């Protein structure tokens, strides 16, 4: 039954998003073409005021790419990178759908509760 519900919402069981994954997807959506690992981390830190380990960002980005929720391409190397390229991420259609579904589900669960103030 869980599987049916998930497929009805276009989000497979293995597409279920963790909280940090959702944050990363939202950060990618915000940064658009500038969405490489460190700006994504900075965006999450700035908006949530949480400490985020560099390794957590890389590993989560990798996982989201494997799930097909993010796509990645290499950009030209900037200054002070030792000639090494950076990697830019963008949402795929599945990633966009999964992000929307997660946000909608959270809103539905939150509706009528006064646990958190409206932002």
């Amino acid at each position, binding site marked *: 039954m869980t599987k049916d519900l998930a497929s009805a919402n276009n989000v497979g069981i293995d597409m279920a998003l963790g909280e940090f994954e959702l944050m990363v997807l939202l950060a990618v959506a915000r940064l658009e073409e500038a969405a*490489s*690992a*460190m700006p994504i981390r900075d965006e999450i830190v700035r908006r949530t005021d949480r400490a985020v*380990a*560099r*390794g*957590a960002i*890389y*590993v989560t*980005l*990798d*996982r989201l790419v494997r799930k097909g929720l993010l796509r990645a391409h*290499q950009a030209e*190397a*900037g200054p*002070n*990178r*030792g000639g*090494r*390229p*950076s*990697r830019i991420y963008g949402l795929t259609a599945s990633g966009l759908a999964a992000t929307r579904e997660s946000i909608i589900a959270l809103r539905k669960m939150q509706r009528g509760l006064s646990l958190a103030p409206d932002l």
Partner: protein
Amino acid sequence: MKALFSALIGLVVPAWVRESVLGDLEEEFHRTEQRGGRRAALRWYAREAVSLSARYAIERWHRNPDVSPQRSLKDRLMTDLKQALRNLRRSPGFAIVAVTTLAVGIAVTLSVYALIDAVLFRPLSSVEPDRLVRLGTRTASSQSASRFAFSYSDYVDLRSRSQTLTSITPTALTPLVLRVGESTSEILSEIISGDYFPMLHVTTGQGRLLGPSDDYPGAAPVAVISHRAAQRHLADREPVGATIVLSSRPFTVVGVAPPEFGGTFIGAPVDAWLTVGSADGFFRRDWRTTRLSACCRDSRPA
């Protein structure tokens, strides 16, 4: 040092993100160096490299189906077992060789262990082992000594004339049928002289052991049984004083040997001891199949 930590990252981080990760670190390294100097930047780099490598190693471990903690030990063992059985079925010749090799190996190991256990771990008696000997005979035509070629008369002669042996006892290993109540079983017995237990310095487990007073022609039919036989055949009664039937002849059990004592035949644990005097019908004095054990005189200076 920086190159060392870069190499660490190169080992752990997947190839498709390695360059971008190293590039990000390089960029941050420059910023840190400008803010706090090279040493601070190097410390930062080392810390980040170790942390990053650990994170990737953990992630890789979790994703590996063979070692993932999500698979229980039982699942992994069952997978290995099934794989082994499939391989054996595909190669029956190899399976036969493997099973045979294992069987022979186990049998040899058990035999060697039994020998080592009997010789090294279960001392025959409390007397000095280097004073205990077995006698053998050798003829002009034979190359090796025979240890089962004595008669009872040989024993009597040697006992009376020997200057170097303090005591001597004949031992004849004899299979007998033991009957206790309705149950019967075949056991090994040693037919001995009254000197046997005193010579070996065996202490009794229960009751008493056999001595010279039990060894004369027409002696009362009494026996000492092993601790194992007492537990196996007389567990429901007091063994000392019980009557057992050995090959159709009733014997009274006068004692139980201590648990660690099983006779003088290595690898053939004995369950009953009878004196020559009480073993008529089981032992003939003219048989030349008796083994003689003896204790040498102590030659060490006092």
